[in-house]
C-alpha cells in the first residue's frame, strides 16, 4: 500500500445532505461538547456514503469546520484509514478479501474476474465509470469465504459463476442482493440448521 493519492479533480464545495446533516449531528452528540473531534471517523464515513465512496478535499475542510478542529487533523485521519478513499472509486466499489482463508477458498480467481470484467488495475474505474475494485485484507467473514464487499454489503460463499453474475449486474447500474450466494442463512450450514432446532430465533 502506498500513500493514498489525492484526486486531481476536486469538487469546489461539499455539504451534507439534510438527512446526513441530521445523522452527523447525532454522531457529534454522542461525545462530550469539548470532545467533538471524536466524531471525525463517523463523519468521514458519512461523507463517503454520500459522495460515491470517496472523500474530496472540500469535504475534509467541511468536516474540520463542523468539528472546529484544524484541517490537518482530519487529513491525518483520512489518510490513515484504508477504509477512507481520497480519490473517486466508482459508484460500486468492490473490495475483494485476499487474506489466507479467502485465498484458500479461491479469492485469487475472484480477483482475476474483477481484473477481467471491471478494470485491469486496482482502483481504476471500469469503462462505463460505474465500478472499481481493490484487494483488501481480512473482512472478518472467514466462515463464508471467499468474500467481497460492495459498498456497505457483503457477498459471501462466492464462486466464479456467481461473481461474474454479480459484476454483470453492477455494470447495469444495479445492486445485487447481498449475503451468501448459496442462500445460506448467516453462517449456518448450507442445508439448514443442524443444532438448536428447538430455539426459534437462533
Amino acid at each position, binding site marked *: *500500500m*502506498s*500513500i*493514498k493519492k489525492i484526486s486531481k479533480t476536486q469538487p469546489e464545495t461539499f455539504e451534507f445532505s439534510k438527512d446526513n446533516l441530521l445523522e452527523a449531528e447525532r454522531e457529534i452528540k454522542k461525545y462530550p461538547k469539548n470532545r467533538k473531534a471524536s466524531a471525525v471517523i463517523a463523519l468521514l464515513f458519512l461523507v463517503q456514503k454520500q459522495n460515491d465512496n470517496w472523500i474530496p*478535499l472540500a469535504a475534509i*475542510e467541511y468536516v*474540520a*469546520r*463542523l*468539528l*472546529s*478542529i*484544524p*484541517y*490537518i*487533523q482530519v*487529513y*491525518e485521519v483520512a*489518510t*490513515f484509514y484504508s477504509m477512507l478513499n481520497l480519490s473517486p472509486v466508482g459508484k460500486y466499489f468492490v473490495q475483494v478479501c485476499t487474506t489466507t482463508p479467502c485465498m484458500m477458498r479461491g479469492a485469487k480467481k475472484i480477483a482475476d474476474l474483477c481484473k477481467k470484467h471491471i478494470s485491469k488495475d486496482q482502483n481504476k474505474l471500469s469503462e462505463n465509470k460505474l465500478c472499481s475494485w481493490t484487494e483488501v485484507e481480512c473482512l472478518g467473514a472467514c466462515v463464508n469465504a471467499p468474500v467481497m464487499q460492495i459498498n456497505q454489503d457483503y457477498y459471501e460463499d462466492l464462486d466464479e459463476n456467481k461473481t461474474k453474475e454479480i459484476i454483470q449486474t453492477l455494470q447495469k447500474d444495479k445492486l445485487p442482493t447481498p449475503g451468501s450466494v448459496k442462500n445460506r442463512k448467516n453462517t449456518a450450514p448450507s442445508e439448514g440448521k443442524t443444532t438448536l432446532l428447538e430455539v426459534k430465533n437462533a
Partner: protein
Amino acid sequence: MIVPKIIVNNKEVEIEEGMTVLQACELAGAEIPRFCYHERLSIVGNCRMCLVEMEKSPKPIASCAMPATDGMKIKTNTPLVEKARKGVMKFLLANHPLDCPVCDQGGECDLQDQSLFYGHDSSRYTENKRQVKEKYMGPLIKTEMTRCIHCTRCVRFASEIAGIPELGAIGRGEDTEITTYLEKSMESELSANVIDLCPVGALTSKPYAFEARSWELKKTETIDVMDAVGSNIRVDTYGWEVKRILPRVNEDINEEWISDKTRYACDGLLKQRLDTPYIRENGKLQKSSWDKALRLLISKLKLFNSNEVAGLVGDLADLEMIYSFKSFFEKCIGSKNFECRQDRIYINPFERMNYIFNSTINGIEDSDFILLVGTNPRLEATILNARIRKAYIKNRLKIYSIGDPGDLTYPYINLASNTSLIRAIAYGTHEISEKIKKSNKPMIIIGESALYGETGKYIFETLKYFLSKNNFIKENWNALNILTQQASRVGAIDLGVHSINETENFSFFNKLDNDEFRFLYLLGADNICFDKKDKFIVYQGSHGDKGAEIADIILPGAAYTEKNGLFVNLEGKLQTAYKASYPPGDAREDWVIFNDLANMMKKPLDYNNIQSLQESIKKNIQLKINNQINKNNIINFVNDNISIKSIDYYYTNSIARSSKVMNECRQISKKFLFTGIEKAS
C-alpha cells in the same frame, strides 16, 4: 512524609512525584539517548531509543513514558539495554539515507551522535530504502523528508507550544509522512523552532542551506534586539558574516524558543549597510571621510542655538550608545531636547515600575487572571505570547482583552474597546473589576496601542490607581505591566533620555511638529514621521533606511551583533550582548563616535573606555531602581476608542526591512486570513 526513591545503576536518588524514569536516570547522572522525548513537549514514546532495564520486567521499558515509582530498580548500562538500543537504532537507520556529508544537520545531528554509540557497522536490511517527496513548509524551513524518523517533535511543537496545529503525520506505517495541510506555508511566528527540535536533518533552515558547517562557525552568546523581550541568542559567524542565529536557553525569558524574526532577520545585517560617512552636497549624498563629516557636523552645530538642537534615539540602541548620546548632548551641546519614544506613546518615567513588565515573564505562569489592554502580544512580543499560552495550558486561566487583537493562539474573551470600560473597571461597576479583586495574582498588560496621547495617560494612570488601591502593587506581586516593543526603550528611559516633565509628556513632539528644532540628530531612529522642511538632519546608524534617506550627514554605526553592549529588556533585566562580528568598512562603534566628537569639540566626556562607561550606566540604572515614590495620579476621563494598531510584523526595524528572508515571510503572511483553524460556520 517519605520521599520516593529509585535506584539507578545501584545509585539511589530521591525523586519528585510525577517524574518519569528518564528524568530520574538523568538525576542519577545516567545519560539516556532519545529522539522523540523533549522536556517541553508532551510524551509520546514512539522512538523507543530510551529503553532501559527494569528489575522484574521481562522486557526493557521505554524510560521516557514510564512513571518513576518508589523502589524501582533501573539499569542503564547492561548488555541487554545496549542490545535493545542497537536494535532500535538499526530500524531507524534502515530507511535513513547515508547522506551525512551533504546534510546541513551534520555535526549537530542527534542521530549521527547516537549512531556512534549504538549503530551497527553494517545493515542486514536489503530492501530498497524509502523515498519521500520533499514538502513545502514556507520560506524558512527546508525539508528532506526521506531523513525523517517520525519522532513527531515538530507536530507536537506546532500544536502545543506555537498553538497553531498545522503540522501532522499523514499515512501510516512505512508510508507515514510529516507535512502541513496540502503543503501550506507554516503561519506561526515561532515556526522555525521546529528546525532546532528536529533530531535529524529532515527539517533544516532554508536561508542557511549549504552556507556553512556547524563546526566552522564562531559562536557568540548574546542578546536579541528584534523586540523588547531580550531573547537570549547565539550568533554564529563565519568571518564577518553572521550566518545564523540560534536560541540559547534562558528559563526566565525565552526558555529555548526564539521568534522567526529574531532568527532570520540576520541576513539584513549584510545588506543596505552604511560603511562610510556620507555628506549631502547639492541635494545628493556623497561619500566622505570621518574627519570631514565630523568637522561639518560640529560647524553646523555652532550655527544653531542649543534649544534648536534635538536628538531622537532609535529602537535598536544599546545603553552605551544611548548614554554617550545623552552625555554628548548635555555636555557638548548643552541641550536636553532628546527623546526615545519614536511612537509618541505616553510614558510616566518617574518611577521604574511605570514602564516595565513588573509581573515578569516567569510570573505569567503564576498568574490567575490576565487583562490585555490594547495589545497584540503575538506580534508585539512573540515569546511572551508563547508564555501566556503555556500558562493558559497549565492553569486554564481566564484571559480578557480590551480591543480585538485577532487570533492569539489561546482563547480569550473580547471586551468592548472604549475607554468608558476602563472607567467602569476603576469604579468597580464592571464585572471585570470584581474578578480582578477576587484573583490572587492578576496581571494587566498595557500595550502601545492603548498609550497614545491623553487617552493613554488616562488609561495608564487610571489602571495604576485601580491596582494600587486594591493592593495589587506590592513587593511580591506587581500586576501593572507595560508591554514595550523596542529593545532600547526601557533602557533609554532608565537613563533619562526623554523630555518628560511633571506637566508635559509630549513637549518634544509638540516642538518637533511646531518646527522649533532646526538641527535633528537621529541615533538609529528610522520609524519617525515628521516633516523635514529645512531641518538639518544627522543620521547615525547601521542601515541605509528611512532615517538615512532624509539625512544631511550620515555616520555609519555598528549593528547589534557588532559591539559589546548592555540592553534592558521589558522586564527591566539588564543583559550584556557580546560582539560576534565587527562593523563593516569604516563604520565605528557608536559610543566611540560620540567620544571622538566630544574630543574634537574640546569638551571630553567623563569616560574614555567601555568599562568606565558601563560602570556609570549601571550606577544610573541602580539609582532608578532605588527610586520608589508610589505616587498615583487621578486623571479626568477621556472618551476614546482603543483600537489595536496593526503591526507589519516582519518589517518593524531597519535590519528586518533590509532582510530578504523577512521580505519573503511578509509577502506570504499577507495571504493568511485567519490562522490555522477557521472559525466554525
